[in-house]
């Protein structure tokens, strides 16, 4: 067992721990910090697997943009909210049962998959470097790339519309 495999195990355990902590933490700020640690561990897994582009953008976009925004909103809102104290809703028991069933079914399908093993670090094929990745992205998937710009414009317009309608209902 090499140090690469040990690191993948370590990051996987950290991601799992972060996911479990998200369910049991009481304050949303602690949930956000658990999610950030989970995302950073996943970025570590991607880096150990050789997919450095995804690892870098996981840190930049998810942790750097999305979660910073989320932490900012948590600080903006009132901390004396009753939902900050009572963690779970009435769906606690069915939710846990359904989640366990889903994890079990997916796990059985993963075991029955019987896939060939991939070696961490051996995935550092040249196709995962930035240049071939970008060439492939813009040559094969240029339509999807342009469609994402439409999606982002729609999101911006929708966010502005939501804010404006909220102001109108206020006064």
């Amino acid at each position: 067992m090499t140090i690469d495999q040990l690191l993948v195990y370590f990051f996987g355990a950290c991601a799992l721990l972060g996911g479990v902590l998200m369910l049991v933490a009481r304050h949303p700020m602690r949930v956000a910090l658990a999610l950030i640690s989970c995302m950073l561990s996943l970025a570590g897994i991607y880096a150990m697997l050789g997919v450095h582009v995804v690892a870098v953008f996981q840190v930049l976009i998810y942790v750097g943009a999305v979660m910073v925004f989320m932490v900012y909103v948590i600080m903006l809102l009132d901390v004396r909210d009753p939902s900050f104290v009572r963690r779970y809703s009435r769906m606690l028991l069915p939710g846990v049962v359904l989640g366990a069933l889903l994890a079990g079914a997916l796990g059985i399908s993963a075991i029955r998959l019987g896939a060939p093993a991939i070696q961490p670090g051996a995935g550092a094929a040249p196709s995962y470097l930035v240049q071939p990745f970008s060439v492939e992205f813009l040559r094969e998937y240029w339509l999807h790339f342009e469609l994402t710009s439409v999606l982002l414009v729609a999101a911006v317009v929708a966010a502005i519309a939501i804010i404006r309608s909220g102001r109108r209902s206020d006064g």
Partner: protein
Amino acid sequence: MADTQLLLGLSFVLFALGLVGVMVRRNALVMLMCMELMLNAVILALVTFSLETATLSGAVLVFLIFVVAAAEIAIAIPIVLLLSRQRSSLDVEGYDRLQG
């Protein structure tokens, strides 16, 4: 042996944890964060499949998921802020106006 099955299993468990979090927690922001956890699990599965098949399609899809996550947050956060301003609460059990 950090094989495909292990990474896929981790992805499935993270997805199930996110789903349980969406169903179980009361706070709207925490539910949003659990949705992000589900998206992260999907990204891990995509990267694993992309490595196994030695193609770039999975990694390209990961970038599209990044865009979807950014757009989701950009829309969901104003909605949550408006809801909390109306009811001065983030408890989703208080929002039962649509219940028949």
